């Protein structure tokens, strides 16, 4: 167990709609997400005294959000980093509160990820205009090697070769998460898909097809961290933070391509710390979120965090194992692949809602924790969900994790 296990909680969650074109500023969306998270928790702006966010490409500053919502911050900052920062900011928050620097921290990510500045640098209308290749980019941009899909593809090729795996395993992941999205009224893509649909979708960067890639989304998503003492006074059942890892790196972080086996993801360097701090094991997890920038990133993280062995995940995901009512219900919101891409924050929100037993599904009583568990009627609450985790990905060489429990665990 960690020194601070169960001493801090996630008490509020909120987000805007997941949109293809928001026609709004990231500032406006951030305010809505933070306001909804405060309302969800039953917190006033006077009771929130810190805001953190992170950005690459599109974003807004915490200062403007605080100003707009009337929050006086004892701490405010924006980290310059991408996927895997969500869980890292939880660790920052715990340290700041424990140290007495602030009391209650709102964490958000806001971006017009489709109509503003897109990941990989594309302009809203398509290809990138003439661009500057500086720093590390000197050694990939002139080689037409810039987007996340392009960067992760060589590792995926090598994985398929070394383990004799098929991209049908990627299709299993895509289809499972899309099924969950069909149970999530917030999700952008809700029409169920099959593995064959995945196999027929167009190539983006081989071995990745369109249905291997997450959505590009205009959205803001937020949640709030505070101490357990305060959490018990608030509106929702607290969700306790058991442990995790805060943006852990593999070796050769800046030139992943010279690591002997590029598919040995950063989680392999973090999992003993994370599970050790939490005092539980992968087997104990009832609801899981995995940063699904691509279907393939799910494969690597299942292995890295010990849900199966290295090279085993392509087999592990077969037969719907990641689906609700199966062994390891994963990305119950639909994830980045089907709900929408909020850079990891919304993945945490889903685990929190599941652990409260308040998944916001089609059940009329969801807000009071009354669920039918009838999937045909649109219920996506996992029965008796007690332990959950969110795994963050920021390339093969960096990753984060957050292990949570419900009040009944």
């Amino acid at each position, binding site marked *: 167990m960690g020194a601070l296990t169960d001493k801090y909680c996630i008490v509020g969650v909120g987000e805007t709609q997941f949109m293809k074109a928001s026609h709004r500023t990231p500032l406006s969306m951030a305010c809505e997400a933070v306001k909804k998270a405060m309302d969800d928790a039953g917190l006033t702006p006077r009771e929130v005294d810190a805001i953190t966010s992170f950005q690459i490409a599109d974003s807004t500053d915490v200062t403007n959000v605080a100003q707009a919502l009337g929050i006086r911050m004892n701490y405010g900052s924006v980290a310059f980093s991408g996927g895997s920062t969500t869980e890292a900011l939880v660790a920052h928050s715990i340290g700041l509160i424990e140290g007495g620097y602030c009391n209650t921290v709102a964490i958000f990510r806001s971006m017009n990820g489709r109509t503003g500045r897109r990941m990989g640098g594309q302009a809203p209308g398509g290809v990138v205009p*003439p661009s*500057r290749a500086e720093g590390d980019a*000197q050694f990939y941009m002139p080689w*037409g090697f810039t987007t996340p899909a392009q960067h992760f593809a*060589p590792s995926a090729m090598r994985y398929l070769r070394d383990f004799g795996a098929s991209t049908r395993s990627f299709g299993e992941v895509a289809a499972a998460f899309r099924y969950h999205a069909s149970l999530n009224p917030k999700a952008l893509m809700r029409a169920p898909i099959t593995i064959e649909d995945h196999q027929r979708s167009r190539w983006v960067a*081989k071995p990745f097809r369109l249905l291997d890639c997450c959505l590009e989304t205009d959205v803001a998503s937020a949640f709030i961290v505070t101490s357990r003492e305060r959490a018990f006074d608030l509106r929702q059942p607290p969700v306790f933070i058991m442990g995790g890892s805060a943006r852990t790196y593999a070796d050769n972080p800046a*030139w992943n391509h010279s690591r002997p086996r590029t598919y040995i993801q950063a989680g392999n360097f973090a999992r003993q710390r994370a599970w050790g701090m939490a005092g539980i094991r992968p087997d104990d997890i009832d609801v899981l979120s995995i940063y699904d920038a691509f279907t393939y990133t799910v494969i690597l993280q299942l292995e890295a965090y010990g849900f199966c062995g290295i090279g085993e995940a392509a087999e592990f995901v077969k037969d719907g194992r990641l689906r609700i009512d199966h062994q390891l219900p994963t990305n119950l919101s639909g994830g980045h692949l089907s709900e929408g891409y909020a850079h990891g924050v919304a993945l945490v929100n889903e685990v929190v809602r599941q652990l409260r037993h308040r998944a916001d599904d089609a059940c009329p009583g969801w807000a009071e924790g009354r669920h039918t568990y009838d999937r045909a009627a649109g219920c996506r609450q996992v029965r008796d969900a007690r332990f959950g985790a969110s795994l963050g990905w920021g390339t093969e060489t960096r990753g984060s994790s957050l292990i949570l429990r419900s009040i009944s665990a």
Partner: protein
Amino acid sequence: MPGPIDYSKINIIPDQDTTEWWEGTKRHKLLVRQCKNCGHKWFPPFPACAKCTSMDLTWFETSGKGVLHSYVVVTQPILAAFVSAVPYVVGLVELDDCHEPDGSLTRVAGVMMDDEDAVAIGLPCQVVFEPTADPNFVMPRWKISGTAQNTWKFKE
């Protein structure tokens, strides 16, 4: 062979750590960084040795030969420079003369001269220096240079 790449649409900004590397490509040399203290080699040219922390560095001129470790086939252009080039293959080439006794190795990426059907993991590669419209920049690319056993090709 992939279509032409319009390098004029990429503005390369060499810095103090990389200028000599780009100068090397103009003289058709594929350089990697090397530590004068312990001999370690690496790429890209970060300014310190990850094995011994020495910052007393030199350049090692590789043979420009290696083996294709992996690759991606880019079918959707993202950069304006590559609109006419798709589909193209970016290869990750493991350099023959940068293997070290402790297992560390150096891979350099680049656009293959070959089309997808000629490319397979395990095949030998040779660097090719491609002039650009700007005399200050010569671009290293890779071509398949022979055959090998136990190669692997993506076939889905």
